[in-house]
């Protein structure tokens, strides 16, 4: 059975993409010829802007060539993709295993029964956690700024007909003004992180 797998695919090698590659391997091991369609260029055989209505005709043509289309559940938010899938002979959804299920389980330590052993265990465990600052300041400003993601402009893509074209035109017209601001904001963020990391170092260097 010829299968088209619509999914995020490596690179990058995040858990979701790795799981998708493993699923391709499993399908092929079952004897199915598999091709992959990803929403952006990747190691997949095909790529298409699944959220753009202009991609709809090519999606429909492609879906019709396969006996079954397997779609990563998360991508079904894209309306053009959902519309295109109506042309497929058979559709199946696939969900990447959640990160929670892959989270390593902390080993259970058996506590020593004597005091010295217990204290050693306590100190060992405490050593794996950040100690509160001697000054009593428990807030970590460096961590807070690190949690702020770098400024990235949203992609000019919209599920509404025609909207993405307008967005792209606006993006193009304002690029000269907006891009330097984005660059400067990210430079300031990097400088702040550097500064906090310097301050947080025990030797202050």
């Amino acid at each position, binding site marked *: 059975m010829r299968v088209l797998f619509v999914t995020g695919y*490596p*690179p990058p*090698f995040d858990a979701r993409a790795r799981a998708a590659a493993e699923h391709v391997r499993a399908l092929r091991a079952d004897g199915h010829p598999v091709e992959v369609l990803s929403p952006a260029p*990747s*190691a997949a055989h095909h790529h298409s802007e699944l959220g753009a209505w202009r991609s709809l005709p090519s999606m429909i043509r492609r879906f019709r060539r396969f006996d079954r289309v397997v779609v990563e559940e998360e991508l079904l938010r894209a309306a053009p993709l959902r519309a295109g899938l109506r042309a497929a002979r058979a559709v199946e959804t696939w969900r990447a295993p959640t990160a929670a299920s892959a989270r390593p389980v902390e080993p259970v330590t058996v506590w020593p029964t004597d005091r010295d052993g217990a204290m050693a265990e306590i100190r060992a465990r405490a050593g794996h956690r950040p100690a509160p600052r001697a000054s009593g300041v428990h807030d970590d400003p460096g961590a807070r700024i690190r949690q702020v993601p*770098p400024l990235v402009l949203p992609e000019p893509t919209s599920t509404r007909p025609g909207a993405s074209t307008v967005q792209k035109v606006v993006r193009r017209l304002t690029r000269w003004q907006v891009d330097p601001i984005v660059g400067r904001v990210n430079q300031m963020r990097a400088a702040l992180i550097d500064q906090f990391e310097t301050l947080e170092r025990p030797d202050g260097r």
Partner: protein
Amino acid sequence: MARPGRLAFVPARYGPGVVGGAEAMLGEIARGLAGRGWDVDVLTTTARDHFSWAAEFPAGVTREDGVTVHRFPAVVDTPRRVRAAINAAIVARQPIAAADQMAWLNDDMRVPELFDHLLEHGDGYRAVVFAPYLFWPAYVGAQLLGERAVLVPCLHDEPEARLEIFRPLFESVGRVWFLSEPERDLARTIFPALAEHRVVGSGVRVPDRYDPEGFRARHGIDGPFVLYVGRRERNKNWDHLLDTFGRAVTRSSMPLSLVSIGSSEISVPNALTDRVIDLGVVTDAERDDAFAAADAYVQPSAYESFSRTMMEAWLAGTLVIANGAAAVSRWHCERSDAGLVYDDDAEFEECLRFVAEAPEAARAIAKAGRSYAIEAASWVTVLDTIEADLTAAVSSER
């Protein structure tokens, strides 16, 4: 004697007419190990040229010089505008979001069928060796295979090396092989959690004979000349070499020509047409004769991880003039005592003047280079080191 397990080597291009140090090096190692009894595959693209990536070799499987070569189509199906825009930001060392870095990587040549091959057959290889780190096949294939992957990064201190998307590559592979100590030191600086690694070096073939007079006669070259061999690209500082050479010989009336061998069309200013001789791509034997005929070899690149051509010049008894911005080139020149290093245009001009005014002294300095190159770039030593590393990897897996 047959060795245990199959190996694969993954250069982005492989075959006759392919110009590139990393590609040549990986091919030599592949054929060398095949000659020592290893079962070797080469997994590569159908391209010869690394700009167009046009299919110039047929896709499929062939047997070439003792190795099995699998060629997969290189796909370029985007206008590469995203890549060009982000490239400019990379060169300017501007901060770039991780998603944009990934878009930059994927908006270039990709090889989905090679990915499929590795996905399905990767586990069947004892080790798969990738080079260089900047090309899509190495980035993707090495991370797909993880512990089974060996990365030969051919790392230089270029802005791309600082992109965060390369961290998982250098940190997740089974092992990293470096071509020189300065390259290893640079990697340790950039990637604190670098995977297990060692310096394996690289080698050059020692020609049986040279024919410098024949080379001059075949190309009608009478006077003294300096030689450049390699890719004639901005990245290799070719444009700057042409510019500084032109200014130096014109200002000082030095009777030197510049002979250039390598890929890419070049554009020579009118004022220099009688000073620059472009031979394009030539045979290995013709290139060796050029090294022997030259009064000096110029290595202008600031991005070198080994510099095979410097070794080839020294083997031919020719002085090397190298750009000191490349730590590896400086390192070789200082260790061999057979090369001059320049740090600016004025120093470069004086190097040329030395060659023009004291050719005998230049030859005398270069003499020490041959023994250095034979020792530092011996394929026997390189292959011994690699076999030992592979065997150790095999043992540790048992």
